[in-house]
């Protein structure tokens, strides 16, 4: 006779979030992406305080001619005669402003605008998409609203918003804060529609699945059902929208500034640096390469972060 042996768990049960973290850690892409993104954040946030050159100072007098159009120091590898100076590691622009300082300063704005606008668009899009997909009664109305927003021309909308809100916003939160809020809201409000349509499409299919029907039949409340059962299953298109959204937001910001509804002209952002340098692309390739690289790198990081997060949150993949 053998006694029935019940195996007692030796380790305490692990929380769900710990599981997710373990899975996330094992995703090397996500880890590298995350670290790199933190590094970029550190550089753009702390960099301007540590770095010795100011982003907006234009040299005057005799210095101007001496300091303008300086090449980056690595340029010396193949062209030792070029105009270089160790004090300006990435060179200067046509007005003698330091490129590295402008990149760091511009990164702050671009990343802040990109993240904030992306989160706003994602929140709006997911919310409207889930509601429209789940509640049949609201579907028609919300999707026609989506059609309306898709059809509205972006430019006149921006012009109207700027006229209506710019002065009052800058009065209440200061000129730069006002512009920031305005830009984030504008980009967010004009880019949630694809996310909403995609999420709704998925929700329409999901809510007929067995597990949702099962959850409904045991009386799960709608809000719980949406949060626990539906949302985790539409996470992957949302993550893709997030990565694409951050790139779009950074670029859109530059075209807003170009129109004169963004930050003041002496306020660098990555999109603007790229835009300004296109004319001199062959003469000074570094001026397009660096901002372009920074935008791409940030977007790649967010993409890998999203990949890792998606894998970590998917219980079917977790632990494999």
């Amino acid at each position, binding site marked *: 006779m053998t006694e029935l042996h019940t195996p007692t768990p030796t380790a305490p049960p692990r929380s769900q979030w710990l599981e997710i973290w373990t899975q996330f850690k094992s995703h090397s892409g996500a880890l590298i992406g995350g670290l790199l993104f933190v590094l970029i954040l550190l550089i753009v946030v702390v960099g301007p305080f540590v770095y010795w050159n100011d982003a907006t100072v234009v040299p005057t007098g005799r210095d101007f001619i001496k300091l303008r159009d300086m090449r980056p120091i690595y340029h010396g590898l193949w062209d030792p005669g070029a105009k270089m100076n160790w004090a300006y590691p990435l060179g200067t622009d046509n007005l003698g402003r330091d490129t590295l300082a402008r990149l760091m300063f511009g990164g702050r704005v671009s990343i802040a605008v990109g993240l904030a606008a992306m989160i706003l668009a994602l929140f709006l899009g997911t919310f409207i998409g889930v509601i429209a997909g789940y509640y049949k009664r609201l579907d028609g109305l919300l999707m026609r609203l989506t059609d309306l927003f898709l059809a509205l021309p972006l430019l006149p909308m921006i012009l109207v918003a700027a006229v209506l809100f710019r002065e009052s916003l800058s009065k209440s939160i200061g000129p730069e804060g006002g512009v920031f809020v305005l830009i984030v809201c504008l980009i967010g409000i004009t880019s949630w529609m694809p996310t909403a349509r995609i999420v709704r499409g998925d929700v329409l299919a999901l809510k007929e699945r067995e597990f949702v029907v099962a959850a409904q039949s045991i009386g799960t409340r709608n809000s719980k059902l949406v949060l626990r059962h539906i949302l985790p299953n539409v996470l992957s298109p949302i993550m893709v929208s997030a990565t694409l959204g951050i790139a779009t937001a950074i670029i859109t910001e530059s075209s807003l500034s170009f129109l004169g509804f963004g930050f003041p002209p002496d306020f660098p952002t990555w999109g603007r640096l790229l835009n*300004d340098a296109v004319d001199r692309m062959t003469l000074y390739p570094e001026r397009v390469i660096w901002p372009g690289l920074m935008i791409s790198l940030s977007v790649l990081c967010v993409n890998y972060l999203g990949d890792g997060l998606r894998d970590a949150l998917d219980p079917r993949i977790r632990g494999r």
Partner: protein
Amino acid sequence: MQFDEVGQKYKRTIQSDMEREMKIKTLLMGAIAATAFAPVALAERGADGQVNIIYWQAPSILNPFLSGGTKDTEAASLIVEPLARYDETGKMVPWLVNEIPTVQNGGVSADLTSITWKIKSGIKWSDGSDFTAHDVKFTAEYCMHPEGGCAQVTKFEGVTNVEALDDLTVKVTFGAPTPFPYGPFVGGESPILQQAQFENCTGAKAPECTSANFGPIGTGAFVVEDFKPNDVITLVANDHYRDPLKPAFGRVLFKGGGDATAAGRAVMETGEFDYGWNLQLAPDVIAQMEAGGKGKPVAGFGPLLERIMLNNTNPDPELGPDERSVVRPHPFLGDPAVYNALSLAIDRPLLVEIGYGKAGKVGCNWIPAPAAVNSDTFTCDVQDIAAANKMLDDAGYLDTDGDGIREAHGKPMKMLYQTSTNAVRQDFQALIKQWWSEIGIDTELRNISGSVFFGGDPGSPDTFQKFYADIQMYANTFNGTDPQSYLGHGLCEKAPSPANQWQGENISRFCDEAYDALYAELTNTAGADARAEISRRLNDIIVSKGGMIPLVHRGRLSAHANSLGGVKLNVWDSELWNAADWHRIK
């Protein structure tokens, strides 16, 4: 069928461009010989094939009376022509007439109230019919029609009657003595339309005549073959052109759209196009394109002046809509010490070098051209920060709280500096902001899209007429060589305000009794020298009394292919004024 031909021709042009590239050395060595042979190319009409022109603003319509946009007027100048033009030196030359009427030759009446033009005989419209004085008379009626919304109606200002005395004589009568009677029918903005074609298109019906507006019949060297609005025009040589040997080119491909950089690249680097219009690019960008070796830039100077306008009223946002930028004075800009110091702190030669290169000169005067009207009172090509600082110190504007910014009447001297979006202007803003920070004046920069800034929408706070800023930068000019109406922009009564829906031309709201009195004198003075003298004095008043800070006297910079001969850049008239003489250098 026609399209097909154009495509083939276009392709052939590209191929011949490639061949030319191979021959480029031979060409350079034999440059002198080539110029000597150039007239041979004119041996036959249409012998030189196709010429490709690119305008980065695309023409929308070919009837200059309905648009007024430079791109439309210039494209139309290939087709329709005025009675007299300005040449590249700004001199008036007879075009469809025998001579320029003057008081001396009896063409202008002694009391200055009428001018009589005598049309050259034998001129034909491109449909083969005769060009007569009745067409000229009709053109005046067309533009002066009250419901037509004619863009060039100022050309006909003061005209009371236009009559055709006979088939080749037309007399224009003015309501008052007009010292400068060369408004109507002179210059690219005031060409002659054919009566037969536009007869049923006057007044409110003007926009309905699409085919006429898109393909006017003219006396010029070319005829419209196909017009795609805002995109491309194809033209062919006019069979009835008055000179049987011209034009040397049989076809014109006139492409529009894109940006100045792309146009410059297509002419000077890839050689796809022969002529690129108005390349507003930084000098180093132009120089790099020129290194492409396929074409060269040409510059010409008219009266275009890039300037900083000083707001003579108070733009404080706390003021209500009826007072902001309407009530005088400005908190501190009205003080000569302030605006002179601001001007002294600017390094104009550097601005020219950075922004315009060959297409710019230091500008100290509101009216920098023509030469007779250009005042020599001021010099402004030396920057002196120390002197500017001293000027402000002496005037009592001191930095009392030690933040690096001076105070005027207890308030920090901060200014909002706005301009339109344009790479060069944003560079200027950054430079000037830096210089002014060194004399203790803080500047906030703003750039506004040109379509809003220069649009006159009274509902927008961002137009240059509203001037909701302390200072703003833009360029302005006048047509022809007589600055009278341009000088009128300095009159008190022309200041924009809510009362006139912000539609005045006195953007800086300058107001000076002496100026107004002297302007009245100008309107009653005849004789070129006397008029020029008064104009110079008016210029001096505006500049010295704080209407504006002149920055750069800007030229027009265009580029043409090395193989395109006969180009004479004209800033006083259409750039394409002498397209009939253009030819291929072989």
